């Protein structure tokens, strides 16, 4: 697989080269052309050459990434960064041979790197920074970032300088300051490399944030040190006075605090701006990106740390912006950030490999070896010293293994390399050796450490990141723990970080939120908690949408409801397949989802549906990251079907979760007003927002369904919302709507009858209505809402992936489909629970979290069935099967 892909890439590359030569020749000929005549077509490569090259780079990077991830085995063994560097080396070799490397656009220069490639990555890191772990570990991070980096710089500098007097470096003099310049650039851990590596090995949050935070924050230190030593070297060692040192030390504070300040200012301004973007939501993502970039450029302009600025800008923005901007903008921002950072990272690593192949090298074995060794040794020593120091005040102490991973994770990367490239050769005559040594160190860390750190983490049994869905209980409990601990700390009089955090939160709530948010949060209102709820709600909605793509109606209105929307959204071909799968998969408990959909109004459904499409295309892959700061590339790397399965399954059971009872009333209201049937209902609901239209259909049919269902079924409403349902029941007889249910059965009845000896009138009615939906009104909806069609491929994809992943259940499905008489009697719960019991295996480690959800619907149903509606239970299941089979025959 990979072979093919790399071949393709190579061919593409060769194509590019040939193309390039061809263009040169063309332009040459063009210049020579004698008579000035009108040219119908002109070939003008020079006009676009630079942009063209850049675009091709981006394309190549993307294709490379796509190619690598086609082969699971490859990406499993080697970090992506290594593969990209290798690819870069190959391309670099080609360019070197063809002498294209002399052209500017093809090599990494530090301006490109610092102005274009680096900011998106850092912004993304800041924007998705897990705030809580970051601030919890801030002390440790600062200690490591500042003191440890200083320590490393001094030690490495001294070591190199010391060895310069021995014959190892070939007896050539290294002056002290250039040694320190080199040490300053080589001792800083690189955020890009750390990100690329650590996101792939999934260590726990604490470890990740300590290493990554260090790599982010030490930027200020390394830049200051680099600048200090660089300018010292330019001033000359003998001309230095004490004042220079003092100013150097001072500049550290200016650079770091200035960066943070600029970042926060721009972040706040950005939030403030988004307060007023209500009417221009399309610009929201752009505003966010531009402000962040401006923060970076501004701080670079006044020569403070741009990395710190953009990091903090991102962190501040994330706090407030997402409350202001629309959901679409929010998702777009996140997606664009991930996309940008992902491609920039790709390009950086490729450039690294590419730029290695050049003439600007001077290999000095002794120097390289000493550098690598001292980097390793002092990293370990530094971590050992400062992590132990940090343990004095840390609540959760860093263990030896943590320290080992921390020191082993000290990767160097492109920042060091770019800094080495911009050294002034006239002042630092050893530049070439430095560049070579930097590349050697980078390659060593990225390749050897990067490849081995994964197995090492596994082998040492480091606590892994817990991948958890944002469960309500977890959020609630976490928040409660915070509250409790804050109080108790106050009570016990030990003003720990908890009460500090609480103070920050109060400040945040009383001032920042008030100024920066469109809607002022209410007193004591827990926005985060609500947000989690909304997120979960949205996921549920999304899943209903997904499952609805194939959910064939059970007699319950639930399935019916979803399937009406399903017909809107997807071609009927996948319908049969998936529906059976679901019919077999659905545990007994979920079959009558009546209570969920009964209490869930069409209005609500409409709201959700609005985001369905959007979420489906945008948020789905991005979502886990948002919660647990995975990088986007991970998710694409994770091609395991298990997670797919897990999602699918858990969401069936979650279906009825996103009840918003608020809508109950509206729904009932709608019913009451829609006495005369579907026409009237349509008119009521069409009063609502424009996007309601496709759902008018569903609402209308829902009505007819409700009228068609037996009174028994309507009893199956959850006891929690008895009030509304009583109303519903009372309104049902009146809303009985003959037109839909009585007309259509005639057309399609025969097919269903053939296959099914057990036919429940209700199920047929539903089926046919739904078919009618598919042919009739829905197409109209499709006309007026073309985007619905556009989501079809997505639907297919999802369906397919599930089908593939779920082979075991598939088998059962097929047996069900092929032989309906296999279960002549009512399907017993065992039939379903067989599939059901498998789910924990599929879900693997997630079983614990999802299982309770699966039980969610149990009590209701059991109660209903056991107490009152035993016979209906059986018919229901029969119908479920009938419906499933119907799906096949129909198609």
């Amino acid at each position, binding site marked *: 697989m990979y072979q093919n892909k790399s071949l393709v890439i190579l061919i593409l590359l060769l194509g590019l080269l040939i193309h390039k030569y061809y263009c040169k020749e063309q332009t040459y000929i063009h210049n020579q052309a004698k008579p000035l005549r009108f040219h119908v077509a002109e070939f003008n490569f020079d006009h676009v050459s630079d942009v063209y090259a850049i675009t091709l780079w981006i394309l190549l990077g993307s294709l490379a990434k796509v190619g690598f991830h086609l082969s699971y085995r490859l990406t499993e063994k080697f970090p992506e960064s290594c593969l990209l560097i290798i690819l870069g080396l190959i391309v670099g070799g080609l360019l070197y041979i063809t002498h294209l490397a002399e052209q500017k656009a093809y090599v990494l220069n530090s301006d490109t790197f610092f102005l274009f490639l680096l900011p998106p990555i850092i912004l993304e890191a800041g924007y998705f920074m897990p705030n809580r772990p970051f601030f919890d570990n801030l002390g440790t991070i600062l200690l490591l970032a500042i003191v440890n980096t200083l320590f490393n710089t001094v030690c490495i500098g001294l070591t190199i300088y010391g060895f310069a007097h021995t014959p190892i470096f070939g007896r050539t003099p290294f002056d002290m300051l250039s040694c320190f310049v080199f040490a300053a650039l080589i001792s800083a851990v690189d955020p890009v490399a750390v990100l690329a590596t650590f996101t792939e090995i999934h260590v726990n949050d604490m470890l990740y944030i300590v290493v990554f935070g260090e790599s982010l924050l030490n930027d200020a230190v390394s830049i200051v040190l680099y600048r200090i030593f660089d300018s010292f070297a330019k001033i000359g060692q003998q001309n230095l006075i004490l004042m220079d040192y003092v100013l150097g030390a001072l500049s550290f504070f200016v650079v770091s605090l200035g960066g943070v300040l600029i970042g926060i200012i721009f972040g706040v301004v950005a939030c403030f701006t988004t307060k007023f973007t209500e009417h221009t939501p399309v610009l929201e993502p752009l505003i966010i990106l531009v402000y962040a970039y401006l923060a970076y450029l501004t701080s670079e302009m006044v020569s403070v740390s741009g990395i710190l600025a953009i990091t903090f800008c991102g962190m501040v923005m994330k706090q407030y912006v997402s409350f202001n901007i629309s959901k679409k903008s929010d998702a777009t921002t996140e997606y664009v950030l991930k996309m940008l950072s992902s491609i920039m990272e790709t390009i950086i690593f490729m450039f690294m490999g590419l730029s290695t192949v050049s003439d600007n090298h001077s290999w000095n074995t002794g120097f390289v070896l000493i550098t690598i060794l001292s980097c390793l040794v002092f990293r370990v020593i530094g971590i050992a010293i400062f992590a132990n120091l940090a343990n004095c005040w840390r609540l959760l102490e860093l263990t030896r293994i943590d320290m080992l991973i921390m020191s082993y994770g000290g990767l160097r990367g492109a920042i060091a390399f770019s800094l080495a490239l911009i050294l002034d050769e006239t002042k630092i005559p050893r530049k070439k050796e430095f560049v070579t040594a930097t590349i050697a160190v980078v390659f060593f860390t990225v390749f050897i450490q990067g490849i081995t750190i994964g197995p090492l983490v596994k082998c040492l049994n480091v606590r892994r990141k817990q991948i958890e869905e944002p*469960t309500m209980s977890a959020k609630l409990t976490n*928040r409660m723990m915070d509250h*409790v601990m*804050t109080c108790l700390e106050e009570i*016990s009089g030990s003003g720990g970080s908890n009460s500090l955090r609480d103070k920050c939160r109060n400040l945040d709530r009383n001032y920042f939120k008030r100024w920066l948010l469109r809607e002022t949060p209410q007193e004591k209102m827990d926005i985060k908690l*609500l947000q989690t709820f909304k997120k979960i709600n949205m996921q549920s909605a999304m899943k209903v949408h997904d499952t609805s793509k194939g959910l064939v109606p059970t007699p319950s209105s639930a399935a019916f409801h979803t399937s009406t929307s399903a017909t809107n959204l997807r071609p009927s071909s996948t319908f049969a397949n998936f529906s059976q799968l679901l019919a077999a998969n659905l545990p007994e408990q979920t079959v009558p989802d009546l209570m969920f959909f009964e209490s869930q109004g069409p209005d609500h459904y409409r709201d959700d549906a609005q985001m369905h499409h959007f979420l489906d295309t945008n948020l789905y892959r991005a979502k886990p990251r948002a919660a647990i700061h995975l990088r986007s590339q991970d998710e694409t790397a994770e091609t395991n079907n298990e997670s797919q399965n897990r999602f699918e399954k858990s969401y069936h059971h979650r279906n009825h979760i996103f009840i918003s*009872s608020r809508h109950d009333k509206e729904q009932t209201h709608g019913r009451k007003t829609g006495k005369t049937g579907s026409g009237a209902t349509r008119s009521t609901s069409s009063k609502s927002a424009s996007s309601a239209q496709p759902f008018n259909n569903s609402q209308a049919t829902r009505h007819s369904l409700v009228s068609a269902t037996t009174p028994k079924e309507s009893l199956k409403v959850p006891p929690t919302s008895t009030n509304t349902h009583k109303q519903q029941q009372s309104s049902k007889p009146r809303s009985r709507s003959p037109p839909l249910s009585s007309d259509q059965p005639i057309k399609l009845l025969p097919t269903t009858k053939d296959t099914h000896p057990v036919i429940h009138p209700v199920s047929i009615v539903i089926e046919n209505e739904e078919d009618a939906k598919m042919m009739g009104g829905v197409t109209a909806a499709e006309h007026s809402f073309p985007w619905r069609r556009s989501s079809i491929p997505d639907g297919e994809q999802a369906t397919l992936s599930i089908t593939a992943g779920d082979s075991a259940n598939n088998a059962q499905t097929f047996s069900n489909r092929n032989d309906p008489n296999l279960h002549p009697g009512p399907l017993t719960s065992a039939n379903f629970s067989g599939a059901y019991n498998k789910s924990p295996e599929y879900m693997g480690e997630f079983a614990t979290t999802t299982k309770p959800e699966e*039980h969610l619907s149990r*009590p209701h149903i059991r109660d209903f069935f056991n107490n009152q509606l035993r016979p209906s239970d059986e018919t229901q299941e029969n119908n479920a099967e009938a419906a499933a089979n119907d799906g096949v025959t129909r198609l």
Partner: protein
Amino acid sequence: MGSNASIMLQQEDLQNICQQTGFTTKQVQRLYSRFKALDKRDCGFLIREDLLCIPEVNINPLGERLIDVIMEDYGENNKINFKQFIFLLAKFRGGKAKSLTTEFNTRESKLKFLFDMYDRNHDMKIDRRELLDVLKMMVGGNIHDDQIATIADHTIGELDDDGDKSITFEEFCNTLERIDADDKMSMKFLS
């Protein structure tokens, strides 16, 4: 201040407390002085108002509930004396690594405390109403009751394993296994 406090505290009491709770002598003395500072009427026990005087507790949405728990489960007659006070705080002493765990600061007991925050009728079950009460405290009054009810239902659904619409302590522990309750429910006592 510290020396003053230690005089008031009987030496053997101090030893006893240290042994049972795992606090160091200094920590106990410090807590004692804190206790004294809270006890404004100087009568040897704290009442609700004493705790409510702490501004952070006062504005904390769960402050009242927490005081309820403290007073009812750890104190008696709406009073809490120093010994009860320190046993309460012993639950939240950090340091599982150094084998400093006593019977008080196990993960279990920390979770139990959390559980008790919900379970005010002591039937070892969190039912829907109890959850709703806590949720209302934490979310504030501005959200529609229905919405809170939905959240509550959702939460119960997540935690409830045996389908009885209430959460037992076991279910509570099991589901929260993934949360670092041990770390988050610990604090550093100054010594």
